[in-house]
């Protein structure tokens, strides 16, 4: 409890958007189109840059791409799933990101049909990071408390108060009212979902897509609900 410390080092979980580069050649064309639709939306957005399946960057190529992103107002802060030397050439660090890594091995949803056969060897063996068992919490999660189930699901059998935050790499189940924030798939698992018995949340998010309480459908407030991504949109459904 010394008052003289000049700094503290905290292991804080933050949700970062991950930019997966599937086709470097067409990246900037499509990105510019997207930016034209929502000008300013991406300004200063911290990003983790991750090469998609089968994409390899040279030192110069990666550095040039990162510069291109910066010119467009984005803020790449780290690379993932690529050699440290390549990331360092662009002035970035490398995030050790097991879930992201695993995702890179999976076929991307866009070319699902074609890729499934080709990547038949992907399951089981390629998963160097097996999911941890679910974490269970039986005490109410109080305002100001933060609970993170790393590498797996989170099961809460008590209320989650306003001002509390529950997070999981997998699904989040709440057998009680959800009044605080719930974040599922925080490492980027787009199949993750949130389940709760009474939807009174301040914020819900799956794989970085979020909705605030005022964006939740009125008829479902206070009702059992499930939230998950459908075509990149966070959907809320009655349970």
């Amino acid at each position, binding site marked *: 409890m010394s008052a003289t410390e000049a700094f503290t080092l905290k292991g804080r979980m933050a949700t970062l958007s991950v930019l997966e580069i599937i086709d470097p050649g067409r990246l900037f064309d499509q990105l510019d189109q997207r930016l034209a639709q929502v000008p300013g939306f991406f300004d200063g957005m911290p990003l983790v840059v991750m090469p998609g399946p089968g994409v390899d960057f040279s030192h110069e190529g990666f550095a040039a791409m990162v510069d291109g992103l910066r010119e467009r107002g984005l803020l790449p802060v780290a690379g993932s799933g690529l050699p440290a030397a390549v990331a360092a050439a662009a002035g970035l660090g490398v995030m050790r990101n097991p879930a992201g890594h695993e995702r890179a091995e999976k076929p991307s949803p866009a070319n699902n049909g074609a890729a499934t056969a080709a990547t038949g060897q992907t399951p089981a063996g390629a998963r160097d990071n097996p999911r941890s068992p679910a974490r269970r919490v039986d005490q109410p*999660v*109080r305002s100001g408390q933060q609970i993170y189930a790393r590498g797996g699901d989170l099961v809460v059998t008590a209320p989650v108060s306003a*001002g509390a935050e529950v997070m999981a790499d997998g699904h989040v189940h709440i057998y009680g009212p959800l009044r605080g924030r719930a974040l599922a798939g925080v490492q980027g698992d787009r199949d993750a979902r949130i389940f709760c018995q009474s939807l009174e949340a301040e914020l819900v998010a799956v794989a970085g897509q979020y909705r605030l309480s005022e964006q939740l459908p009125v008829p479902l407030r206070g009702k059992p609900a499930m939230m998950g991504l459908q075509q990149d949109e966070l959907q809320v459904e009655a349970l």
Partner: protein
Amino acid sequence: MARIVVVTSGKGGVGKTTTSAALAAGLAKAGYKTVVVDFDVGLRNLDLIMGCERRVVYDFVNVINGEANLNQALIRDKRVEGLEILPASQTRDKDALTFEGVQSVLEGLAENHDYIICDSPAGIERGAHLAMYFADDAIVVTNPEVSSVRDSDRVLGLLASKTRRAEQGDAPVAEHLVVTRYAPSRVGKGEMLSVEDICEILSIELLGVVPESNAVLNASNAGVPVILEDGTDAGQAYDDLVARYLGEPRPQRFLDEKKGLLGRIFKG
């Protein structure tokens, strides 16, 4: 073995000190040797509520610093047998409280008291943390409004994680809810949260409800724990509350609107 009870809330001005004084006086009246400790170093109030401000010579910080012993600092209440007060220091701040100092003072008090009531300062910083750290029981005081309830929720989280019992893996601190300044008429109009709502949000057991009452202000001004004013609604509410704390079942009162003459005429 003394039982250590922290009276806490997070938010200021909700009635922690009033509740501490009433609880301590009630327990002493019931025959238990009780001491109430003011942890609000720098903003000393308990001595005023207890009406002993002119008798403060040494305080909590003096004892921690070894400048006085416990017997010199403890003030014996003149109205209730077996009730003592350990006042806070007004000239110091919360940093004067050390972990070891608080622990040794509480151990000293535990030798010849049945109950040690710790009147916590507002907030969740050092003073409040040390007040709750050694507790066996917690009385969480809440007003029927959202910010107070949210702060109490935060404090309940700390009680479950930042106390000696939590850190040593013992049975958790027993949590009791006290709702103060409750005005059923304003609940009816939707201006205040109802007791049911508060219990639902905090999901802990309700010990008692103290109605909004002039008696509390009058008692504070007079330096009398309000529980000793047994003709008043707030005094009776605290009396019920202490009895329930000691295990005697008593029905909740003061939950419904007192109907005035006009109300009776119009609502039948």
